[in-house]
C-alpha cells in the first residue's frame, strides 16, 4: 500500500496488548460434510449466485471491504463462489485513517493470506483539510472520508460494480434496498428510479458512467452472519470478542482509547473494562458494549438475548432521523 499512514504507534497511552489472532485451519482441513442448517445453506447459495452474476456480466467489479464481520462473510462466500479459481476481483478498502489498529492489521493479514489484491484508498484532500471524526463531527467526517472517498476510488479505477455488505435487516431504509442497486452518473441513488427485482432475474445492464452496488448478503440477518461465522470457522477481527480494553464514557457510549489521537476531555479517565464491539467503524465513532463474550460461541449466545440493535453503538445514525437514507442518496452504501 502506498499511502502515508499516520504514525500512531508512539505515545505512552495505556492500552491493551494486541490480541493474538488465531488463524483457523480452513485452508488446511476442509470440513468433510456440510453441517450447515438449511436456512444458512439457502442464504449461502443465493449469495454465491449473486456474486457469479456480477462476475459474468460486469466488466470490472470490486468488493468493498470494510474489515467487519459482514465483509469477512462476503469474502468467504467469494472464495466459495469462484473455487477452484481465485477470487476474480480486488478488494477496496476506503480508509478514513481512523480505523482501529487491529482492523488494519487484520485487513493486511487477510489479503496476504488469501492472495487477493487489496486497494486502500484515502481521501487525501480530506486529510489536507484536516477532516477528522472528533473535531469535524461524524456527519462531515463520514461525508468526506467515506462517501466522497468511495466515489473517488470508484471513478479512479473505473469499477462498474461494487459489492457491499449491507443487509436489509440493519435499518429501516435498507429494508427496501435492491440487491442490485443502480447508481446513475455521479453515483446518485434515486429511490424512485430503482429497478424492480423479480425472481433471481437481475437487470445488470448499465451505460458507461453508471454503476451498480451489489448487496450480496442482503437477506442475511445479524444472527445468520454470526452463526455462519461460527459454523464455517471464518476469521474475524478480535475486537468482536470481549477482553479488557481501555475505554472512556462519551455521549452515552463506551469509546475505546485505541491510541493517542483520541483527545480526552478533562473529566474523562480511561477505565479498563471487559468490552467488545458489535459493529466496527472509525474508533471514535464506534461504541463498545460491556460483555463477557470472549468466544464466537459466547457471541452467538449473547445475540440470542440481546435487547439493543447493532447500530445502537454507531454515532452516525442517531444524528438525525432517516440519516441513513440521506447518506445513501449522496452515494454512501
Amino acid at each position: 500500500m502506498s499511502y502515508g499512514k499516520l504514525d500512531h504507534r508512539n505515545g505512552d497511552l495505556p492500552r491493551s496488548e494486541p490480541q493474538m489472532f488465531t488463524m483457523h485451519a480452513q485452508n488446511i482441513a476442509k470440513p468433510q460434510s456440510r453441517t450447515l442448517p438449511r436456512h444458512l445453506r439457502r442464504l449461502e447459495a443465493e449469495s454465491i449466485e449473486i456474486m457469479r452474476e456480477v462476475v459474468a456480466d460486469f466488466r470490472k467489479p470490486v468488493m468493498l471491504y470494510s474489515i467487519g464481520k459482514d465483509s469477512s462473510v462476503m469474502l468467504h462466500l467469494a472464495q466459495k463462489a469462484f473455487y477452484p479459481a481465485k477470487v476474480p476481483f480486488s478488494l477496496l478498502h476506503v480508509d478514513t485513517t481512523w480505523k482501529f489498529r487491529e482492523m488494519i492489521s487484520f485487513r493486511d493479514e487477510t489479503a496476504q493470506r488469501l492472495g487477493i489484491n487489496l486497494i486502500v484508498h484515502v481521501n487525501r484532500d480530506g486529510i489536507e483539510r484536516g477532516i477528522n471524526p472528533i473535531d469535524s463531527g461524524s456527519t462531515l467526517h463520514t461525508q468526506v472520508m467515506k462517501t466522497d472517498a468511495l466515489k473517488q476510488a470508484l471513478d479512479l479505477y473505473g469499477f462498474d460494480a461494487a459489492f457491499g455488505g449491507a443487509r436489509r435487516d440493519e435499518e429501516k431504509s435498507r429494508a427496501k434496498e435492491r440487491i442490485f442497486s443502480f447508481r446513475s452518473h455521479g453515483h446518485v441513488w434515486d429511490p424512485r428510479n430503482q429497478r424492480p427485482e423479480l425472481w433471481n432475474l437481475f437487470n445488470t445492464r448499465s451505460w458507461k458512467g453508471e454503476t451498480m452496488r451489489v448487496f450480496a448478503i442482503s437477506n442475511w440477518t445479524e444472527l445468520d452472519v454470526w452463526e455462519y461465522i461460527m459454523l464455517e470457522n471464518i476469521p474475524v477481527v478480535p475486537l468482536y470478542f470481549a477482553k479488557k480494553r481501555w475505554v472512556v464514557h462519551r455521549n452515552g457510549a463506551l469509546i475505546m482509547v485505541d491510541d493517542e489521537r483520541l483527545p480526552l476531555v478533562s473529566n474523562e479517565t480511561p477505565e479498563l473494562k471487559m468490552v467488545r464491539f458489535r459493529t466496527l467503524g472509525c474508533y471514535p465513532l464506534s461504541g463498545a458494549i460491556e460483555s463477557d463474550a470472549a468466544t464466537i460461541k459466547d457471541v452467538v449466545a449473547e445475540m440470542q438475548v440481546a435487547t439493543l440493535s447493532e447500530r445502537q453503538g454507531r454515532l452516525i445514525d442517531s444524528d438525525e432521523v432517516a440519516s441513513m437514507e440521506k447518506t445513501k442518496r449522496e452515494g454512501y452504501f
Partner: protein
Amino acid sequence: MDTDALRELTFTDSKDQLRFITCGSMDDGKSTLIGRFLHDSKAIYEDQLQALARDTVKHGTPGDAIDFALLVDGLEAERDQGITIDVAYRFFSTPRRSFMAADTPGHEQYTRNMATGASNAQLAVILIDARKGVLVQTKRHSYICSLLGIRHVVVALNKMDLVEYRKEVFDRIVGDYVKFASNLGFTSIAAIPISARHGDNIINRSRNTDWFHGPCLLDYLESIDIQSETAGLPFRFPVQWVNRPNMDFRGYAGTVVSGSIAVGDEIVVPASGRNSRVKQIVTYDGDLVRAEAGDAVTITLADEIGIGRGDVIAKPTERPEVADQFAAHVIWMDQEDMVPGRSYGFRIGTQSSASGSITAMKYRIDVNTGAHVAARTLRLNEIGFCKIATLLPATFDAYEANRRTGSFIVIDGETNRTVGAGMIAFPLRRAVNMAWRPLSLGKKERAALKHQRACIIWFTGLSGAGKSTIANLVDQKLFAMSYHTMLLDGDNLRHGLNRDLGLTESDRAENIRGAGQVAKLMVDSGLLVICSFISPYKAERDMVRDLVSDGEFIEVFVDTPIGECVRRDPKGRYAKAKSGMVKTFTGVDAPYEAPSAPEIHLTTLNQQPERLADTVLNCLAARGIIVPTNRTEN
C-alpha cells in the same frame, strides 16, 4: 468447540427458511401485523422501539400507544405520505424457521410491487378486514398470487376485535373466500381469526376465539409443509459462468434450480442437442457425489461440448423447451406503454442479453375479476397475455411447471430500465432440433464471389429530409463502380410486403422489423443493401443493427431541420398532416429520435445531393467497405 449444545439454543439442524408475502391494503392492518411479528418475536430491539415511540408522536396514527406500522414504513417520502410504495423485506426467526416477509402495497396502482414481492414467495398471507369481508382487492391480491405461482395461502381475518370475535362472521367470510378461490389453483388454503393490533392469534392462541381450534398464525407459518417446490422437478442447471482457472479445468458454475444430478449422469444441452456425462461436482467444501435443487456448484463434464453462459444443462430424458416464439403473461412495470413490435431486451434465466419483441397482444386481464379484455398494448401495472419472439432460440419451461426456468424480465434497450416481467405459458413454434443449421455457404463466401463486403447502409431522417434522393445516388454510384447493391425504400415496401401496416407506433415498429429482416437476408446473400426509412425510433434502428454483425450496419443520419422539410414537402404530406388528413406524422405529432452516434452524419442545408452522396462513399471507403476507385478500371 462445543457447538452441539449451542445449536440446541439457536437452531435445529433442520431449520429452514420460509419466504412469504403479506397482501392487503393499508386499512387492512398489514403493516401492523408485520410490526407485531417483529415485536412479539423479539426481532426488534429496545433502541428501535424507543425510536418508534418518538416517531409515533411525529407521524403515527393518533390514539395508538405504539404504531407498529411505523416499524415497517421505510423511506422518508413514504412516511410523510403515510403509504407504503415499495417492497420491503422483513426478517424474524424462531428456532425452527427463519422468515423473510415481503411487505408490499395493495392498491391497484402498485400491482407491479406486489408481483415483485410475490415472485420469490412460497406462501401468501392475505389480510381481510372482518368488517368488510371479501372485497375486490382481496380478489386482486389472490389472483396475482396465483399468477405468480404461489400455491399456499393463509387468510388472516383481521380486526376480529371490531366484530366481537364472532364465529359466524369468520365462517361466513371464509366460506366466501374459499368459494371464490376454488379455481385459482392453490394447493392449500388456511384461515385464522386475528387482531393485529391486539395480538390475538398472532404469536399465541387467543382466549377471545375459544371456538377456533386451528393454530395461531406463527404456529401455522412454522409448521406448514412447504414441500420443496423444486426437488421433484426435472433437473435444470442454467450456466452462469464458465470457470477456467487454468488449461486443465473447465467448470460450469451455476445453481441447481430444480431436480438433482449425480456424478456419471448423462446430460444434454438442449439448445445445441449435444450430450455428455457429469465428471465432477466441485465445491469449495469438497467434491459432491450429488447436487440438489438449491445447491450452488461447479460442474465439469467428460467432453468439451462448447457450453457458455445462458446455456441450460438438463437430462436427455427430461428436456426443457427450446423455441424462439412463445406465449406468456406479461406484467408491465414502466411509465411508458409497451409497444408491440418494438425491440426489447429479454432476460430468461442466465440468458441475460437476449433480444426480441412482443409480437402480438392476445388480451389484457382485468386483475380485479380475471376477465379477458381486448387490448393492443399494456400500460403500467397492467397484465396481458402476449406472443413473444426472440432473435435466438431460448431454453425454458412453462412457468407453471418451473418458476425458475419459466420466468423472464423485459428491459428497455435505451434506458436499461426493467419495464416488464413475464411468465411463459407455452412455446409457439418449437425449434425441435437446432433453430439454425449452419449453412455450408455463408455470407463471407457469397460476398467474396462478388469481391465485396456485405453491409446495410441505413438512411434515417424526417420525411422530406432527402433520404431517398441521396440513397438513390449512392446506389447508382456503387452500381457504376461494379458493386452488387439493392435499394430498399420505405414507401415501396409499404406497397408490397408491408401493405397491411398503418402508421401507429406498433405498426411502424413492425414495418421496420420486416424491412430489417429482408435487409439481413440480403446481407447474407452478400449484397450492399441501401435502406431508406424514416425509422423514427432508436430502439427499432438498434434492433436492425443487432441483426447483423459488428461493422455491417452503417447508420446514415440525414439531418434536415423540420422547417426545411415542411418547406420542401415533396409529397405534400406535411400539408396533409397539418390539415389532419394524416394522423401521427413524424415531426408533426409523432416523435423523431435522432441518432446519437450515427456512422455518417449528413447536414443537408445548402448542400447538393451529389456532394452528400460522395460523402457517403468516402465514409464507406474509410471503413474499408468499398475500395475508393472505380473497380472496372482495375
